């Protein structure tokens, strides 16, 4: 009596399977896999043979390149071994198998007189029973294989193209459908936005407000730094621009005035005294700090 199949449930308990649904699923999947393998192999073999008939292999030795490197020679050696290797290996393997068969036969003939003794009767019974069961199992496998092979192949032949075509159709239908849908929706939305720009502005403002709100709530320092940084950099740019333009204008105006007064163009300004140059390189804070220090020293104790 065949054993009832068991499975592991969600709580990791081994429980007997209630119906053969799982087995049937397993068999169906395996049929499809085996059938695909066989069907694919046959098809592949058929096509390769047809190609070989159309393109027979070249007779005689191939012309060798004059300057074949060691790597090229090694590659040729490996490819040649792949083709000629089985032929070379098959003879020793057959000889080995025959030798093993003979050795087993000799060992059997040597052991059989002892095995017939009543002392070894239980062991002989066990061995024969095991052999019988093994033979029955092999017969069952063969029978099953004989029955399943054409069935699986037929299944693969019928279902594989159908599955492939259905999948391709579904994918193309979905892609086209989605694209059309997106295009339609986007064009509708764009037309709507064009008619109602105030809604887009409101949306952008709302998102901007939300982001600012988020920054204000979650990271006020960052918001403050952004505002300060922007203001400072903008103010700095304006100041630099103003300063550089006025410095250029200083020379330009001076040149015009001197030209009008028929005075020579100024080649170079005389350098201020070194003390003044040194002071000019100080920052404003440093100037005020030094001034305060001086005032402290001036105060009577």
């Amino acid at each position, binding site marked *: 009596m065949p054993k009832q199949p068991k499975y592991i449930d969600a709580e990791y308990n081994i429980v007997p399977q209630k119906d053969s649904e799982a087995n049937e699923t397993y068999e169906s999947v395996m049929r499809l896999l085996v059938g695909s393998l066989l069907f694919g192999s046959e098809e592949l073999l058929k096509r390769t043979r047809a190609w070989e008939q159309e393109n027979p292999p070249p007779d005689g030795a191939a012309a060798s390149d004059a300057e074949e490197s060691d790597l090229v020679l090694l590659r040729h050696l490996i490819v040649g071994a792949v083709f000629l290797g089985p032929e070379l290996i098959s003879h020793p393997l057959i000889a080995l198998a025959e030798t093993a068969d003979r050795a087993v036969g000799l060992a059997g003939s040597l052991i059989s007189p002892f095995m017939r003794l009543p002392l070894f009767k239980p062991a002989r019974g066990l061995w024969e029973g095991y052999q019988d069961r093994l033979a029955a199992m092999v017969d069952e496998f063969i029978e099953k294989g004989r029955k399943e092979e054409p069935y699986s192949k037929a299944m693969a032949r019928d279902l594989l193209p159908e599955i492939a075509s259905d999948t391709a159709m579904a994918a193309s239908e979905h892609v086209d459908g989605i694209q059309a849908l997106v295009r339609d929706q986007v064009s509708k939305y764009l037309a709507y936005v064009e008619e109602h720009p105030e809604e887009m502005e409101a949306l952008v403002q709302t998102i901007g407000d939300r982001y600012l709100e988020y920054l204000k709530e979650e990271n006020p320092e960052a918001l403050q730094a952004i505002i300060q940084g922007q203001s400072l950099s903008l103010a700095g740019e304006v*100041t630099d*621009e*103003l*300063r*550089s333009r*006025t*410095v*250029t*204008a*200083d*020379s*330009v*105006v*001076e*040149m*015009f*005035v*001197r*030209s009008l*007064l*028929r*005075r*020579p*163009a*100024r*080649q170079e*300004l*005389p*350098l*201020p*005294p*070194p*003390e*003044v*140059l*040194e*002071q*000019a*390189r*100080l920052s*404003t804070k440093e*100037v*005020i700090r030094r*001034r305060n220090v001086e005032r402290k020293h001036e105060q009577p104790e």
Partner: protein
Amino acid sequence: MNSPNENDAFELRGQYAGFVSRTTAFLIDRGIIWSIIAIIMAVSTYLFNVVGLPIQTCTYSPTFGGVVCVVVQISLALFALSFAPLYNIIFWTLAAQTPGKYLLGLRIYRMNGERLTLKRATRRYLGYLLSFAAFGLGFFWITIDNRRQGFHDKFADTCVVYSWDAFQNQRLIDRLSVKLYRSRFFQNPEAFYAKGMTAEDAGERNAHVS
């Protein structure tokens, strides 16, 4: 805007500042001063109006209100007159620059490199008045003087210098120099030589620019 050349920047920092920079700074300071005076005047007038003292229209009368009115009017007038000198003198003394000069990157020093004392700052402000009194010639003198000093600077022995890494558009200046001096030089070179000028003065130095 051209990017500053490091050498130019180094050369111009500490150099005497010119007429346009100083005038711009002066105008910015005037704007600040007048704005503050106008705000204080407006607020004072409003507050006195609220308490029943219309200082714009009231005149002297031998009453308490009339006396207060005149006192307030004189005080406001004095404030308006003294604010500008105080503003300038205090900033020159404490920071060596006014807000306008700070914006333009300028500083005022004595010719020996020291900062202005209260006395020297007052002297310089009086020089300001002198420069005005001479129909503005004292300010205009900055464009002619070799050290770019106005009358007030000479009067107080001070100078105004760039306190930032100043740079100028040298290409523009070279081009203008050639245009202004070169043609006139070739028309009448003797007149140039008579004034002690050379071909180099006339823009020959920059001839390659054109």
